[in-house]
């Protein structure tokens, strides 16, 4: 297993390099000049010339890339063009926020999605199955931003039960932190729950038809034991992959959710950075996100070994 993980890490290196080139190149293709964006309404020519020099915008693109990569390798992602803060500091500040949101959303997704999937597979064709399907479909098709605003208006404005938006670090006030994050996590979690539910259902349906489940039932095992112990465990492999892949969706969803609920996380950082043409920040975030995605995939592959004894022997 260790050699497998090591192999995966080696393969990941060129991927990360390609991504870094891609991100850097793509940014240069964005319309709009970051220096003009920084120079503001006044657009003073002297300021513009100074900023171009300071941020080395006059250098050839490959020199700019080389300078950036040199920094990245030494752990320096540059400084934000807008606030002068180091990008690494910004990322360190924002990453825990988005991880908290993503984890809480994942809890919602798993707690709703997996039981609903099992239930609708076991009760296939009954009213329970249909209801679960309708709910899942709504979860998939209701846009995040709409659900978010509606929840704010209902829960925060009308009932005054939860804060409307914002963020409180768990270290400062754990209870308030959870309360503030509840609505955004729910909004982000529901869409994922729907995907999870659909996949759990089809994986379970496949497994429930298999011979060993029939054997287990024939042996007279309790239905509950058959489903959870025998069927679900085998259906779990595709679900684990999916959950790892959902990480990407989670980050993408977080961009929108953080925007709606004004959560100062990764997603909001990247959106604001794109609008302000804060290149250094965008590059840093995309690189870190891509690496996170790769790590999640390696972890998912490693999890196969744990879940599937046959792979362990190879």
């Amino acid at each position, binding site marked *: 297993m260790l050699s497998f993980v090591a192999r995966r890490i080696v393969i990941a290196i060129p991927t990360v390099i390609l991504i870094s080139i891609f991100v850097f190149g793509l940014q240069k293709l964005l319309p709009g000049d970051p220096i003009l964006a920084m120079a503001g309404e006044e*657009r*003073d020519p002297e300021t513009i010339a100074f900023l171009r020099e300071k941020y080395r915008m006059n250098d050839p693109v490959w020199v700019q890339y080389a300078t950036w990569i040199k920094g990245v390798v030494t752990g320096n992602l540059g400084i934000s063009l*807008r606030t002068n803060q180091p990008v690494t500091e910004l990322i360190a500040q924002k990453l825990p926020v988005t991880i908290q949101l993503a984890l809480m959303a994942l809890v919602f997704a798993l707690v709703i999605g997996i039981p609903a999937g099992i239930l609708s597979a076991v009760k296939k064709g009954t009213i329970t199955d249909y209801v679960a399907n309708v709910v899942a479909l709504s979860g998939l098709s209701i846009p995040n931003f709409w659900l978010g605003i509606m929840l704010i208006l209902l829960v925060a404005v009308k009932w005054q039960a939860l804060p409307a*938006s914002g963020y409180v670090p768990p270290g400062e006030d754990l209870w308030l932190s959870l309360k503030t994050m509840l609505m955004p996590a729910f909004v982000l979690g529901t869409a994922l729950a729907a995907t999870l539910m659909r996949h759990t259902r089809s994986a379970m349906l496949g497994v429930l038809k298999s011979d060993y489940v029939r054997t287990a039932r024939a042996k007279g095992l309790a239905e509950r034991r058959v489903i959870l112990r025998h069927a679900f465990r085998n259906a779990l492999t595709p679900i684990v992959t999916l959950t790892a892949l959902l990480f990407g969706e989670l980050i993408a969803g977080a961009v929108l959710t953080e925007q709606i609920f004004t959560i100062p996380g990764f997603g909001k950082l990247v959106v604001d950075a794109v609008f302000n043409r804060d290149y250094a920040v965008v590059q840093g975030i995309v690189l870190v996100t891509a690496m996170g995605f790769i790590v999640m995939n390696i972890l998912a592959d490693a999890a196969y070994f744990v879940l599937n004894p046959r792979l362990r022997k190879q």
Partner: protein
Amino acid sequence: MTFRKTTLLAALLSATALSAQAADFRFALESDPDILDPDQSRTFVGRIVYTALCDKLVDITPDLEIVPQLATEWSWNDEGTALTMTLREGVTFHDGTPFDAEAVAANIERSQTMEESRRKSEVASITGTEVLGPHQIRIDLAQPDATLLAQLADRAGMMVSPTAAAEAGADFGLAPVCSGPYKFEERVAQDKIVLSKFAEYWNAGEFHFDTVTYLPIPDSTVRLANLQSGDVDAINRLAATDVAQVRNDPSLKVEEAVSLGYQGITFNIGNGERGDNPWGNDARLRKALELAIDRNAINQVVFEGTAPAGNQAFPPNSPWYDTSLPVPERDVEAAKALLAEAGYENGIDLEVQAPNTPVNLQLMQVIQSMAAEAGINISITSKEFATMLSDQTAGDFTASQVGWSGRVDPDGNIHQFMTTDAGLNDAKYSNEEVDRLLDEARVTTDMAARKESYDAAAKILNEDKPIIYLYHETWIWALDDAIEGFVPYPDGMFRLAGVTKSE
């Protein structure tokens, strides 16, 4: 030691006295300010934070008169080339550095010479300073500059601690030290800026909150929801479409002030090859478009009555507005006649670029349908704002729906847009007489003479129409009903002096 005890006692007493009051004032901004260094920053929302954080040499009244803040009095020499200011005594910066004439000199030098300074052009007329006494300073100019006091009433006049500035250099904005009623506590990017009361402030009695928290909340619906749920005390930039709803809510209230800026359509008159087009070459076409537009209808349809119509660089309620040139009524027949005269009796196409926000698009769509009735076929190219500005500077446009946030001194709304080769003259409009009039208005401190120059320039610009001015934005604030004492200013700043919260 005794001093420390007294301070502690005073702090405790004031804490008890205020305990009945709300300790924290929470204010929602529409975006996150940039770096908090008055010499480096450029965002509008940043200036709102400075009203609490950094005092200026002078301030303005809601009627745009210049009044004392850190300078208690001032006078010009007869030539208008030297400004002598007397400074407030007993003022200290948040780090304990005393505020005096040396500090003012250091601040002016910083604005002028720091590489990162964005204030250079605002204080360009200053040739030097002379410290006349601990609390008296003379500012020398090469030639008279009527705009200087207005500049000193904004970021160029904000005083930062020379000690802290020398220590931090360009990173000063990460932990700013000024002399305002509140001092910097903490900032979490895109989340909050927290200030706490500066007990030694010279006018501390006028400020009634222990802390002030600024929260950037970009979505206007969410911003309002935070006010309705009681999570914030007041919000900036209430959406025009929400004004009626807030007025009907007894727990909230609305405050307004017409802004100093304008919105309009800028034409490419001579900026590169694209300036050579019928719209850039023939003022009759631009006049025809103006006649096709009903500005009051725009105000009602797009802005729910919150954006008064305008046709000059200054809003109609400004003392600098030329009343002999009122906002023209819509006249489709006259527009058609002008088009025919210019040789386009069968109609003409016009491409207008506009920022990709819902309001700007709605505005352009209303104009599009009005213009169509006169035979002007407008196509709207929607662009992200930074892209639009960069195309505009490069001359890659025929017409551009763009505006200006406005300045206290009239010069700031007109000189840099309308004089030959000026920095923001994207139309590349050029008229010797306009250049002369606007340059003249810049160097005289005689108000009547300035007004005459601006009126004369307005008449020429009204004929040439490099910009069709459309309307003036209104600053709209929504406040919790418990907030009292807020005074709206046309500069859009939320000043905290005298603001209280009743329970």
